[in-house]
């Protein structure tokens, strides 16, 4: 698909088509999720039962008829900036950790190569060197990891001017190639919820480009939390754990988060 002369923001393997789920199933997923969210907020045995029941309904309904196609992280967002601005921001790879939560750092080595460090399970560092494989100014960038890296990963981003002066459509994906052994486990870890993580990352990018900062409530004051909230904070998949921390510290820190 990279050979295509025109930029295609939506791709065959992408945009929300990772599974085929029927209408009633979506109903069950949404209804179950709503029930689960609602139940979690009840803070009572009945609420927890509701949450468990709702969650199960959502999971079972969502899990059915899983397609054989591997999950893709293709995400496209409309951002109120020019393709040039978006391209320039992304092309400086050292900007990526500002909105990609799992990245700890990216160091640019030369014009085509860069060194990436991501956070794995319990703050374990995952490293790879990447090189740009294809690039069109203000239109697209593709890159992949070099041999000798902890994992195999490749990614792509496309910038397309949106119609009617509405800004730029930014489409992006990152894929972790499955391998065996420890590295395979790491790739699997990163792939888990990769679609959701990519969406979160892209929403943070949108906020950065449009508002100049990413909205947050981390560090704001709050009254005493209860145990359930503390546990939920620790389990939050959207916040990676920093390296060198132990469970107790993580637990304490997460309880502080608003």
């Amino acid at each position: 698909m990279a050979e295509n002369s025109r930029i295609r923001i939506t791709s065959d393997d992408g945009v929300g088509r990772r599974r085929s789920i029927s209408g009633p199933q979506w109903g069950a997923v949404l209804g179950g999720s709503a029930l689960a969210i609602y139940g979690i907020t009840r803070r009572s045995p009945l609420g927890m039962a509701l949450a468990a029941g709702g969650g199960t309904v959502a999971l079972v309904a969502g899990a059915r008829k899983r397609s054989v196609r591997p999950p893709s992280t293709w995400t496209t967002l409309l951002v109120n900036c020019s393709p040039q601005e978006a391209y320039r921001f992304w092309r400086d790879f050292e900007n990526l950790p500002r909105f990609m939560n799992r990245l700890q750092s990216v160091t640019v080595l030369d014009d085509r190569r860069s060194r990436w460090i991501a956070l794995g399970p319990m703050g374990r560092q995952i490293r790879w060197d990447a090189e740009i494989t294809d690039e069109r100014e203000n239109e697209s960038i593709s890159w992949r990891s070099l041999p000798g890296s902890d994992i195999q990963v490749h990614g792509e981003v496309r910038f397309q001017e949106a119609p009617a002066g509405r800004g730029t459509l930014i489409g992006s994906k990152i894929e972790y190639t499955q391998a065996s052994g420890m590295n395979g486990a790491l790739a699997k870890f990163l792939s888990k919820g990769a679609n959701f993580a990519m969406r979160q990352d892209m929403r943070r990018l949108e906020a950065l480009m449009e508002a100049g900062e990413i909205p947050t409530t981390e560090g704001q004051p709050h009254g005493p939390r209860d145990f359930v909230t503390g546990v939920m904070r620790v389990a939050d998949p959207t916040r990676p754990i920093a390296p060198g921390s132990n469970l107790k510290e993580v637990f304490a820190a997460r309880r502080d988060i608003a």
Partner: protein
Amino acid sequence: MKAVCYMGVEKMSVETVPDPTILNPRDAIVKITSTCICGSDLHLYDGLVPTMEQGDIMGHEFMGEVVEVGPGIKPEKLKVGDRVVVPFTIACGNCFFCKKELWSLCNNSNPNYWIAEEMMGYSPSGLFGYTHMMGGYAGGQAQYARVPFADVGPMKVPEGMPDEKVVFLTDIFPTGYFGAVNADIEPGDTVAIWGCGPVGQFAIRSAFMLGAERVIAIDRFDYRLRMAQDGGAEVLNYEEVDDVVQTLKDMTGNIGPDRCIDAVGMEAHDHGLMFMMDRLKQMARIEMDRPAVLRQAIQVCRKGGTVSVPGVYAGFIDKVPMGAFMNKGLTMKTGQTHMMRYMKPLLEKIEKDEIDPSFVISHRVPIDRAPEMYKIFRDKKDNCTKVVLDPWADGARAA
């Protein structure tokens, strides 16, 4: 600092918590001089809106003095010492929606947007002190608050104008006005307004400002209906009539009110079998909101009229007369208020003495008494219409 914290359903408590700090470049810290309990806070008090957590700081109607600004804020926009009212919606000012002045739909101010997307498809803007689904921002029923994107929302107010005249620019006055604007009122129109709480009261007065000929206000509490009458409305106590719809038809020569405003929302009261069913379903969590008012509004609205909904709904409702809505060619408009459109023009109306919003206040108390005031406000005891809290008064002494 002191802050009113949600500690569970029908459990509010004043806790001592750390002072807020600047977290983002465009933040500001406001030392709060006046803060209020909103009718929509009662939905949280009753545990009917999902994603509240124990320890959340309540409140989204507050004003005060800027005591700290982040490095991303230009001094001509906001500086330390400015006296400001803070709108309850948080907006970045530069996304697709902010550019269209759809401020309450800002795409960048809700860090927990994905929870809202799960329930609603897309996320509205972040709100102060109004569930984690709406951002999880600490609220303003406290002594200090952190205000994100402080160069967009907060509006400076002139010195010498007392807090109680301007504090309702943070939510209920613009929200009542927005409800009337959304009703598409034309000169000569008859407007029916359900709910004579603070938002309903401002909707009544705004409807007249926008050219309404008659306003019919509907409630069940005499003290609220009297206040509506003071604002020029004809009043209807729905507990004294068998059928609100028939009564409104009779009052309008069988044409129906041209515009209907639902200033009640998800916890509507009514009598009859349908209401009892709603109540049961809401208790069993089969139905999230009770749409008694919405049903009546759609049923009685004149053909080709407009239904405006400033009242808060959180989730799903049953038995909405969609057939009536479609076949009568009605229009419905709703949404959280696009605050920054209306704050300045309404401040000018206050400055010109066209309206003094402080008429809705029934209680002025120290913040320490907030927990009991939630109950009094919810149960409509003590002729309660609006509670203003003083975060700095010594509650122990005043009580």
